[in-house]
Structure formats: C-alpha cells, structure tokens
C-alpha cells in the first residue's frame, strides 16, 4: 500500500463526496425553488412541485445512497483499501 495509492484513493473519495453533496443540494433545495411554477403541472392529481417535495426528492435520496455505497466500495477495492470479504 504505497502512499501514492493512498493519495489517489482519497482524491477519488473526495471527488465522490463533492458529487454527492452537489446532488444532495440539488434535491434538497434547488429543485424546490420554482415550486409555484411547477405546481401548475398536475400529474395523477399531484401538483408537480408538491410531489417533488413529498416523494420525488425522497426517492432520489434513497437511490443516491445505494449508488454511493457501491461506488465508494469500488473506489476502496480499486486502491486495495477495501476490507477483506
């Protein structure tokens, strides 16, 4: 486990972290900003702005977390820092 591996591992981990935080901010805040406009679109009775806050963002959070767990594991394995199975 050379120090270079360690640096590369952490650089990739940091990049993944930044991507996750950006997506987190997107689904927590950004997509809810134009809620009034989005509410004009109605699907199955749901005004879209309401639906995004009640369900859409939540679904995104769950999917993102499973994706993240996998992705980080790949990074750990690629650099030899994963735990033995």
């Amino acid at each position: 486990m050379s120090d270079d591996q360690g640096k590369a591992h952490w650089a990739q981990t940091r990049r993944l972290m930044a991507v996750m935080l950006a997506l987190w901010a997107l689904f927590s805040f950004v997509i809810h900003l134009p809620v009034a406009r989005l509410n004009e679109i109605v699907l199955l009775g749901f005004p879209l702005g309401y639906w995004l806050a009640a369900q859409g963002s939540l679904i995104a959070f769950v999917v993102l977390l499973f994706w993240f767990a996998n992705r980080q594991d790949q990074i750990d394995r690629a650099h030899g820092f994963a735990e033995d199975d």
Partner: protein
Amino acid sequence: MAFKNDGGFINNLGKIYGIYTVGFLAVVLLVGLLEYLGVPNIVLGYIFIAFTVAVYAFIGIVARTSQVSEYYVAGRKVPAVYNGMATGADWMSAASFVGMAGTLYALGYDGLAFILGWTGGFLLMAVLLAPYLRKFGAYTVPDFLAARYGGTLARLFGVIVLMSCSFTYLVAQVYGTGLIASRFLGIPFDIAVYAALAGILVCSMLGGMRAVTWTQVAQYIVLIVAYLVPVVILSTQKYGVPLPQLMYGQALSDIAAREQQMLQQGLATTADLRSYLTPFLSYDRVNFFALILCLMVGTASLPHILMRYFTTPSVRDARKSVAWSLLFIFILYVTAPSYAAFAKLEVYTNVIGQSLDHLPGWITTYSNLDLVKIHGLSLHGLAGAITAARDAILLGAKDWAAVAPALQAKGLGDALAAWDQMADPLKQWLFTTIAQTPAVTAPDLFQQAIHLAAQQAGDTSGLITNRALTLDHDAIVLATPEIAGMPYVIAGLVAAGGLAAALSTADGLLLAIANALSHDIYYKMVDPQAPTARRLIVSRAFLVVVAILAAFVASTHPGDILAMVSWAFSLAAAGLFPALVMGVWWKRANKWGAVAAMAVGFLVTLYYLFGTRYYAVGFYEVWSGLSGASPADIEKYQSLKAAYEGAAAELKPAAWAALDAHAQTIANWFGIKNISSALFGLPLGFLTLVVVSLATRRPSPAMADFIDDVRRPRGKELMEGGRLLRDPR
C-alpha cells in the same frame, strides 16, 4: 436459546423475524375476531399493548449480556439490513409516527420541510461521517472527538452537547408513551408514564445495545405495519386501489375543490382557510429552506443515530446500512403526506358542515384528551373549568367574578388556568349552572357550552365551520381510524405502532445518554482502571437514573420541554457537525479549533434559542438592527412598550405579556425562526474551527497517520474495548 449461540441467531434472522411478523399479524386478526365477538374496546387495547411489550421484554431479557463490546456496540455483528431497520425505529420517534402527518395536515406544503429535512440528512451522514466513525471503532461519539482532538476537553464538550440534545428528546418520547398508554389502557397519565418507564428499561438494561438493537428491529416491524394498514384501507375505501402513496394525488385535487366549495358555502373564510397546496404560507421561502438545512445537518449529527452505525460488521456495511435505514424510513415518510391528505379530505367532507348538535363520536373521545376543540372548547377543558368553579364555590365564591380571586388566594394555579380558558359569558353561565346543580358533569353541559362558545365567536350557523374545529397535531394519526369509522382493532394497532415508535427511540436515546455518562465520564475521566463488571454496573445504574429522571420530568406535563425537542436538531448541528466532519476531512483541524468551534456553535445556537423564546424583549432591544420586523411591527412594538412603561403596577404583568408575545414574533436575526437557529451557529462553528486551527499548532504527524487510517476501510479499528490502541498525540 438462540441468543446463546449468536452465529445461529444471526444466520436465521430472516426466519426469526419472519415468524415474528406472521405472529404479529395473527394477533391483529385475533383481536379483530374478539372485537367481532363483542369484547370491549379497553380489553382489546390491553391485549395489543401487552402482547407487543411482552415481546420486547422477552427479547430484552434473552439478549442480556455481560460483555462490554456486546453491551456498547452489539458485538459489531449486526447485518446492514437489520441495522437499517433498527435505525429506522431508533430514528422514527413518537413525533414522526404520531405527529408528522398532523404537521402536514396543519401546514400543507410547508410541512414537507420536515419530510425533506428528516430524510436528506442521511446522505450527509453516509458521505461525511458514518463509515469513518465506524472504522475508528469507538463506543460513543465523544470517544472519537477525544481521540481526534487529544483529550478530555473535547470529550467533555461532546458529552455536554450530546446531553443537551438527547435529554429533552427522551422526555418527549416518555411523554408520548404515557399519552398513548393512558389513551388506550384508560389509566391516568401520571401512572402511565411510569409504566412506560418499565417498558423502556426492560429492553435496554440487561442487554444494552445488543438488546436494544433486536427489540428495535421488532419495533420497526410493528410500527410500519401499524402505519400502513389504516391508510391502505382508506385508499381502498375511497379510490379502490390499496396504494395510498399513488392515490392521494386524487385526494389532493379533491381537497382543493372542496376548499373552494367551503368558501362558497360560507363554511370557511379566506382568513381561516389556508390553502393546502400553496407553498410558503406558514414559513416564508428563506425559513422553509433554513429549516430543511438545520434538520438535515442535525439528523447527520445526532449521537443516538450515529452510534447505531458502530454496530455493523464492517465499514462497507456501515455505508450500506445508512442506505437501508433511509429506505426503511422512506416507507413511512412517503406515506405520511397521504395520511394527512386523506384525513384532511375526510374532515373537510364529513365533519365541516355538520350540525353542532350531532358531533361525531371521535370528536368527543379526543376532546376528552384535549386533542380536539370546538371554538376553543374541549371536553377536557370544560371538565377542568367545572371542577374549578366547584372548588371556588366551596371556598365561598358568591358569583362568577369571585371564582378567579378565590382560586388565586388558595394558590390553585391549575384550576385557575382551566377557568381562565373560558370567555366571560361562559364563565357566568357555568357558575350559575353549577350553583344550581352541583353534580352536573362536563358531558352534560358540552353541547350547550359549544353553542355558547360559537355565539361568543360570532358564529351563528349552528354548523361545524372550518374555524370552529381545532385538531391537535397528535390527533390525526391516532384518530384517523375512528374518523373514517374503521373497527377499533385498527385504532388499537395504531396505538401499538405509536408505542413501538416512542419506545424504540426512547431506548436509543437512553442508551446514548447512559453510555456517555458511564463510558465517557465515569470510565474515561473518573476511573480509567475500572474493571469490566463495574463499568457495566455503572452503566446500568445510569440507565435507571436517567430513565426515572425523564419519567419524572414527563409526568409534570412540561409544555416547554416538548416544544424544545425541535431544538435538538439545531443544537446537534451547530455543536457537533463542524468538529466531526472536519475531524475526518481536514487533517489540519486541531484540538483548539475543534473545542472553540463546539463552544461557539453550541453557545450561539443556545443563545438564539433562549433569547428569541424566553427573553424576546431583551433580545429585540439588543438586536433590533438585525431584526426582520416590518415597519408596522416596529410601530406596534413601540406602542406596546410605551403601554407597558405607562401601565399601573397591577396592570404591568398583562402589559408585559402582550409586549413579550409580540416581541417573540420580531426577536430574530434576519427573520429566521427559532427552530432553524443552527443557521447561525453552524457556519460560525466552521469558521471558528478553521480560523482557530490555522492560528494554533499543526497536529502531529502521528495524527495525520491516524486520520489516514480512519479514512481507509482496510485494517483494524483504532479502538478496542473502549481503549485507544495507539495514542496519536
């Protein structure tokens, strides 16, 4: 016993909890059958609660342990999925189960801030904290702070923040448990609270984290079944499809249509009707997003949740486990808005517009618990006022105006408060009635009292109008089965679910507090040589003491404490988040930076919370330049202040109350509400950490290696049995 051989138990988890779930459903059907056969409701309530609590107690007892690592972190062998379920139960409190749908019911779109805030935080936790703390191998959150930031001071600050955010939270859970037990078992609240205490202790005392983990899994199953069943039935009844999460779109449209209809029929006015789907009516845009941020960051820093991820077998499992937790939490949170929408539609169509003379039965039931009011009047409140008047007559009060002074002279504060809730004409009428027929009871008078109260409010329609009806947030989930006319077995099921939610969270919190006291304070600071047996005895003793203290506080009906629960998130966010996150992500962060950041974040937040709530006038005087008050608000403040200053001595208290109430609405920085106060403490905490760290000495190279180890899943934990394997200082 399965627990004696953990390997067998862990390998058969699916089977064991599968059988348990089937058994639970069988009990639900059995109770339904008993109800059909005419067994009284109160007996059904007892069967439900006794069965579920007995199961929790059984698990709590067979999972007992005398090993430190089992006691503190369940031996670190809880599979990701099951830890996810346990975390779900740990996380979803009485407030989520009982209160969330009610909040959405009351606030409409704006209530979704809680749904978003209480789910998105898990992203922060998984990405920034949980896997790293798991790799470190601590028993408690302060353990990590102490190791990373060299010593006792950081640990002590961590414990202080942990205690401040966990204890009020715990009291609220005990309170919720007492409320549900008293409603469904028909025992007085003060006794129910101590009964709840027994239910909480039996799960945690003997087996610590191990017992709590496996009871929480059982509690998750009960609470999720109980949450879904009524609303699935509602959805099927109304729209023929048992998928409430999809079908409530239709309900939302129907609500909007019914709102217009109520306005046209004069059942509601634009002043009292808050459109359900229009955003930013309760919170303005800034406060809505500030609240989401504070709840999210708070979620990610709550010690009793973080410590659940110490129990997974590996770092990889810790990450997966956060994802599973969120999935299990998602199931409830995505359903809560449908609960609220169905309840709203039901109340709008089947309650509003009915005659005041034909109140539905559930209104009487919940009015008795003070959860439903008609024109500000509940059966509970009326009963209190009747007792007060009777006492005053015994004390020699000759007319209605003499009641309050008579009660005051005897120091009967509670009675006085109950009496003063009534408007004057009601007091007058009540006094005359009781003077003539002293034996009269609240149900006899309720009908008449309501009509009087309606007249008093200028509502002569004789109907239940929109503004007449006040539903407490807690009533929505508990009462929906009855509102929709479902059999009592469903109401009992919901009660069992609410109890499971409150008990599981209470256990997690209790363990977090007791572990901080026994491990961080006693073992790490007072007696580092303590043998294992003594550490466990001390921990159990703290468990009992903290639980009794919480039950005692809950039994005093502490209204303020319940309101303070929402503070926990801001305190955890501002007090812990910067130090924890930077501890992993910034090698340059050092002891002084972290200690200063915890102090600044925590104190600024505490100052804002207390200042804006309890010292609003003083807070506004100091910070009027930063207040978000409008010119009209400022003018009103000035006139109220002048009125207070000019008031005669005996009128001062009333004038002060008016001034203080108004000041609370304008005592703020930039209009940010009290509940989102971490919005200031959090960035200040980060700033302090960076500035102070850079101004003081760089951490040692050993510390840099230590952090590298925390960042890499491979290799051993850095702590074992609660002791650091190598000190990085």
